């Protein structure tokens, strides 16, 4: 197995002294090893005080976002050999307050996410709170928001966004992409409510379309596109040209059929042993 030694230069925050400092560690790495593996190696073998956040180790939970070699990435899916460098710099996410070392404070991020009401809003409250069946949705209706629903709230887009860096009130690409995700959902009836929330200078109109959010998203979501689609939806509504969306109805009950299906199981591919 291919091995080499890599120098990890980690920018850390000391909350007690209120200052930044750099730690350097030489880590033996092998092909297939990720930056998260290296950080765990450092914590277990070199410096137990190193703090970072991680959980699933497979780019699902979005916990291990950090700046690796100058770009926001998930540490768990960043292969060290793919970086083609013997020196790897690791920094905490930008545009966040830092709690300690590489751990970013996500309070503000989730506050903005909650603000846009990231859940289905329905008028049929009885069905909503005590559902009898699921709401119907065609594959075409599903595809309108599918890519935006892949967001894992890792916050890399906000770390890459220049507007989030200069305007703390800006809602950010994650919250705005999710606003569009729910507005485009055929089951949702809260479009007007959400448009009121984001039709502000610090909402969707604050975006400068730098596109860096879409560039860094580890799940292939395009928040820059979502923000443009959101602007179009708001403009159409302002011009009175928006289509009035009625929330999808619940699917009809299953038809009970009298016809019995006779199915023949496929033959065994392995010889059955006689008892």
């Amino acid at each position, binding site marked *: 197995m291919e091995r080499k030694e890599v120098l990890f230069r980690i920018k850390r925050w000391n909350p007690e002294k209120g200052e930044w400092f750099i730690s350097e560690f030489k880590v033996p790495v092998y092909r297939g090893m990720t930056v998260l593996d290296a950080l765990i190696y450092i914590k277990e073998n070199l410096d137990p005080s190193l703090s970072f956040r991680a959980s699933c180790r497979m780019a699902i939970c979005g916990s291990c976002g950090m700046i690796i070699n100058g770009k926001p990435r998930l540490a768990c899916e960043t292969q060290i050999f793919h970086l083609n460098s013997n020196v790897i710099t690791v920094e905490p996410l930008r545009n966040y307050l830092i709690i300690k070392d590489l751990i970013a404070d996500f309070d503000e991020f989730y506050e903005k996410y909650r603000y846009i009401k990231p859940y289905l809003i329905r008028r049929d409250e009885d069905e909503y709170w005590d559902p009898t069946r699921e709401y119907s949705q065609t594959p075409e209706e599903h595809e309108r928001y599918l890519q935006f629903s892949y967001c894992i709230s890792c916050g890399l887009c906000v770390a890459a966004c220049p*507007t989030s860096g200069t*305007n703390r009130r800006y809602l950010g690409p994650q919250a705005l992409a999710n606003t569009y995700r729910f507005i485009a959902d055929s089951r949702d009836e809260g479009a007007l409510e959400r448009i009121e929330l984001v*039709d502000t*200078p610090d909402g969707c*109109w*604050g975006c400068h379309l730098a596109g860096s959010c879409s560039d860094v998203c580890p799940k292939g979501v395009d928040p820059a596109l979502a923000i443009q689609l959101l602007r179009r939806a708001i403009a159409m509504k*302002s011009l009175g040209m928006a289509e009035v969306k009625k929330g999808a109805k619940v699917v009809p009950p299953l038809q009970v059929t009298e016809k019995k299906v006779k199915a023949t199981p496929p033959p065994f591919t392995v010889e059955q042993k006689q008892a």
Partner: protein
Amino acid sequence: MKESTLRLIQYTLGIVITIAIIFHLQIFTSLIGLGYVQGLTWEAVVSRMSNAFYDALYAILLFAVLTHGLIGIRNILYELVMDAFKRRVITLVLLIIFIILFIYGLVPIVAAGGG
């Protein structure tokens, strides 16, 4: 006024400015046929400004450029200032600047039109 309404005004005026400026430049080259140098002589300008059509065109251009530009400046300043009260002050100051500059710009148009 909602942010979306302001943005729609800005986008629309952007289109108006483009059309008006193309028309304004076209006047010199083909419609009048004098060329840039001859089209900018005192007599040519005074003669053009006595025409109600050109007066209207320049008044529209003045309004569109001022509104479009000041909304843009407001957007930039809003990113630098977070406080809601200070933002209202910015809007008010820009509105006053708009009124002053619009009146100031209208003076030669009206004066030449009256002459």
